[in-house]
C-alpha cells in the first residue's frame, strides 16, 4: 500500500535534550502541520510519521503534488533536516524518506520500481527501520545475505523455517508487503471504547483523567483475548464537532497509562494551540466532549512473556497495579510522583505531579523526570548547601526569633542579620540557639509586583530547652515574619 513517510533523522538529537517526552511534545508541531494535508497520521516516534498516500494524492492530484505541498509546510515548522519519501510499502517509504533527508529533496519511488528499490537496500535497514532484531540482521550478514534482494530470493519457506515470526516479517518487508496495515478498516466493535463527558472539558489533564476508565477498559478488552495492543487510534471530539485523531505506535505494547500519556500529548498540542497564535488552522473553539479509543493492531502476548523471577519492568507493572488498587480502595486517596523542578526552596525543588500524568512503566521517562537539571538549564544560585532538610513544611508555622536581649531579629536590605539570634520559639517549645549560618537570600521575580518574593533563610543549631536535644532548623524571614521552613530530623 502506497505510503508517505516524513522523517527528521536528527529530531531526537536536537530536541531530546530534555527527555523523550519533550521531544514528543515538540514533535507535535510537525504533526499538526502535516494534518493540514492528511487528517489521520500515524506517529511512529518523535521524528517519524506515516500516512497512507491514497486519500491525499487523489484529493490534491497526485503524490507529486502532495509531497510538494508538504515540503514548505514541514520546513516552516522546524529548521532541522528532514526527508519526505513515498513508496509502495511502509518500509520502502521509510527508506526513501531517509534517502530524501540525506539529499534534502523529496524522494518518490514509483510503484513499478519499488521492488527494485527494496532489493538494493542493505539488510541493516531491516533493523533500523522495521524493528527486526539486531541479532537476526547480524546473522543474515554473516550468512552472506547483504541485501534485501538476496533475502527475497531465498523464499518465504526457508525464512520462516529458520527464523520463525521474524522470518515471516522479514519476508513481508523485502517483498514490499506491509507488516502493519495503515488503513485497517473497521475494527471489531467489541474492543472499541468511547466515553462521553457531560460537560466540555478544556484542560488536557481533566480529559485524561475522565477518559482513564475508558482507556483501561479498552486495554483490558484486548488483553482478555490474550493479546496486546501495539497500535491504537485515539479520537477526540469537541462540542463543536471538531475532531482530532491520531494513531500511536508502541512496539512493546500499550498499557493503560501509556495510552493516557499519548492522549495527553495529543491534547496538549491541540487544546493549547488556541492560545499560541491568533487563528491557527485547526484551533479548537470548545472543550472536548468525547474520546474514542480504537485498538488497531494487536499482537499475541506470548512473544513478550515476563521473565520467571521478574525484571525491573515487571516490578514497575506490579507497582503500578498496586497503586491503582490503592486508589480504588478509598475515595480520598491522591497519588503523586516526584519530578525535579529546580528552585532555591527546599520544598520546591522536587514537585509532586499527579500519577495520572505519567506512565509508571516507562523507566527511562521516570529517570528523566527526577534527573536534576532537566528542562531549561538555569543557575539556582542561593540554593541551600547539602545535606538537605529531611522534613519540609509546605505550610510553614510561624516562629519567634529573638537576640540575647529578647529583641526580635530582622534582616537588613543587604541581607545581613540585625543581631545574632539567641532564642527561637516554635509554638510552646523554646530553643536556645548555639550556632547559626546564613542568611541565604532569595530574591525572585523582583520585576513582578504581584509575584515577587523576597526571603532570607537562616540555618540554626539549637538545643531544645525541654529535652536538651540538639536540632538543626531552617528558618525563613518573609514580609517581616519568621517561619519554620524545614527541619533536619
Amino acid at each position: 500500500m502506497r505510503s508517505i513517510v516524513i522523517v527528521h533523522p536528527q529530531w531526537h538529537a536536537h530536541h531530546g535534550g530534555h527527555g523523550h517526552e519533550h521531544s514528543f511534545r515538540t514533535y507535535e508541531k510537525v504533526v499538526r502541520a502535516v494534518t493540514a494535508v492528511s487528517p489521520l497520521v500515524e506517529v511512529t516516534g518523535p521524528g517519524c510519521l506515516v500516512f497512507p498516500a491514497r486519500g491525499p494524492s487523489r484529493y490534491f492530484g497526485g503524490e507529486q503534488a502532495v509531497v510538494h505541498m508538504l515540503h514548505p509546510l514541514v520546513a516552516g515548522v522546524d529548521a532541522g533536516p528532514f526527508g519526505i519519501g513515498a513508496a509502495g510499502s511502509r518500509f520502502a517509504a521509510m527508506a526513501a524518506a531517509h534517502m530524501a533527508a540525506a539529499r534534502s529533496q523529496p524522494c518518490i519511488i514509483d510503484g513499478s520500481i519499488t521492488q527494485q528499490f527494496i532489493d538494493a537496500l542493505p539488510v541493516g535497514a531491516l533493523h533500523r527501520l522495521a524493528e527486526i532484531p539486531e541479532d537476526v540482521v547480524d546473522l543474515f550478514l554473516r550468512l552472506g545475505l547483504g541485501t534485501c534482494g538476496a533475502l527475497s530470493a531465498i523464499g518465504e519457506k526457508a525464512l520462516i523455517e529458520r527464523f520463525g515470526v521474524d522470518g515471516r516479517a522479514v519476508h513481508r518487508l523485502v517483498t514490499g508487503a506491509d507488516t502493519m496495515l495503515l488503513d485497517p478498516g473497521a475494527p471489531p466493535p467489541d474492543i472499541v471504547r468511547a466515553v462521553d463527558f457531560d460537560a466540555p472539558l478544556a484542560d488536557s489533564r481533566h480529559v485524561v483523567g475522565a477518559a482513564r476508565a475508558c482507556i483501561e477498559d479498552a486495554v483490558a478488552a484486548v488483553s482478555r483475548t490474550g493479546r496486546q495492543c501495539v497500535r491504537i487510534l485515539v479520537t477526540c471530539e469537541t462540542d463543536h464537532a471538531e475532531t482530532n485523531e491520531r494513531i500511536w505506535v508502541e512496539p512493546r505494547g500499550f498499557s493503560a497509562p501509556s495510552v493516557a500519556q499519548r492522549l495527553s500529548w495529543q491534547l496538549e498540542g491541540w487544546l493549547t494551540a488556541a492560545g499560541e497564535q491568533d487563528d491557527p488552522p485547526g484551533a479548537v473553539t470548545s472543550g472536548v466532549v468525547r474520546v474514542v479509543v480504537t485498538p488497531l493492531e494487536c499482537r499475541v502476548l506470548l512473544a513478550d512473556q515476563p521473565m520467571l523471577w521478574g525484571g525491573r519492568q515487571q516490578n514497575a507493572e506490579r507497582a503500578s497495579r498496586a497503586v491503582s488498587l490503592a486508589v480504588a480502595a478509598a475515595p480520598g486517596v491522591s497519588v503523586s510522583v516526584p519530578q525535579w523542578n529546580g528552585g532555591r526552596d527546599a520544598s520546591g525543588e522536587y514537585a509532586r505531579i499527579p500519577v495520572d500524568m505519567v506512565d509508571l512503566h516507562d523507566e527511562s521517562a521516570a529517570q528523566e523526570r527526577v534527573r536534576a537539571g532537566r528542562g531549561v538549564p538555569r543557575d539556582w544560585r542561593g540554593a541551600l548547601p547539602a545535606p538537605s532538610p529531611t522534613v519540609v513544611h509546605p505550610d510553614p508555622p510561624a516562629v519567634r526569633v529573638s537576640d540575647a536581649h529578647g529583641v526580635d531579629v530582622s534582616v537588613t536590605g543587604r541581607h545581613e542579620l540585625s543581631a545574632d539570634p539567641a532564642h527561637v520559639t516554635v509554638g510552646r517549645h523554646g530553643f536556645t540557639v548555639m550556632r547559626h549560618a546564613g542568611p541565604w537570600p532569595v530574591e525572585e521575580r523582583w520585576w513582578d509586583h504581584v509575584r515577587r518574593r523576597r526571603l532570607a533563610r537562616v540555618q540554626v543549631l539549637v538545643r531544645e530547652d525541654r529535652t536538651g536535644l540538639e536540632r538543626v532548623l531552617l528558618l525563613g524571614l518573609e514580609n517581616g515574619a519568621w517561619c519554620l521552613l524545614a527541619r533536619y530530623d
Partner: protein
Amino acid sequence: MVLPAGVRTAGVETAADLLARAGAHTALPVPAPLAPVLPMRGLERGRVHGVTGDAAASLVYALVAAASAEGAWCAFVDMPHAGLRAAHEHGVALERVVCIDTDRSLSWGRVVGALTDGIDIIVARDPVCTAAEARKVASRVKAQGAVLIVQGAVQSAQSFPLDVLFTARTQSWSFGACALERTVRVTAEGRRIPAARGVTVLLPSASGAVAGA
C-alpha cells in the same frame, strides 16, 4: 536414609542451611553502616519495622536507600512533609517512589493493604488505624512479602505488632559554615532481637548519605 546429627555429606544441605541461604534472599539490602543493627543484616521481607526518635526521618531514608537503588519500589504514605531532596541525597531512587496521601480516615488500612500487592517498601507516617486493623495490615504485609516501615511517635506505633523498633537519637551536630554532619545512635529492639543492638553512625554525613562514625 537418616543422617546422624553433625555428619555432613558433600552436596547435601540441611534444612537450616537452606533456610539461612533463603534468608539472604528475603532481606532487602541496607547501607553497610546500618547492617550490624538489623537481625538479618537487611530489611526482612514480610516484617513491620517501627522508626522513632528525633532523627527518625533521616533513618527512614537511609534504611530505604540501598534497596531502592537496587530496584525496589517505595511508597511514602501520608508524608507530605518528606524532604525529597534529602531522600535523593541519601540514595533513594526517586524514579521508583510514589507518594500517597490518604484522607486519614478509616480506609487507611485498605489503602496500605492494597499497596503491599506490588510495592516492596511502604513507609507510613503516624498511621490511623485500630489495633485490629493494624494486625490485618501486618498479616497482609507478611503474606505479600512486603516491608512496612512505620514512622512516628512510639504511642501510635505501639498499636502495630512491630517486629523491630528502631530508635535514632541525635548525639551531636557538627556545624561549620552550615550544618554538616550529625552523629546518631541507632538502636534496634524487638521480638526477634535477643539483646538490643546499637550502632553509632553519621546520619547524614557530609555527602548526605549515611556513613560509619
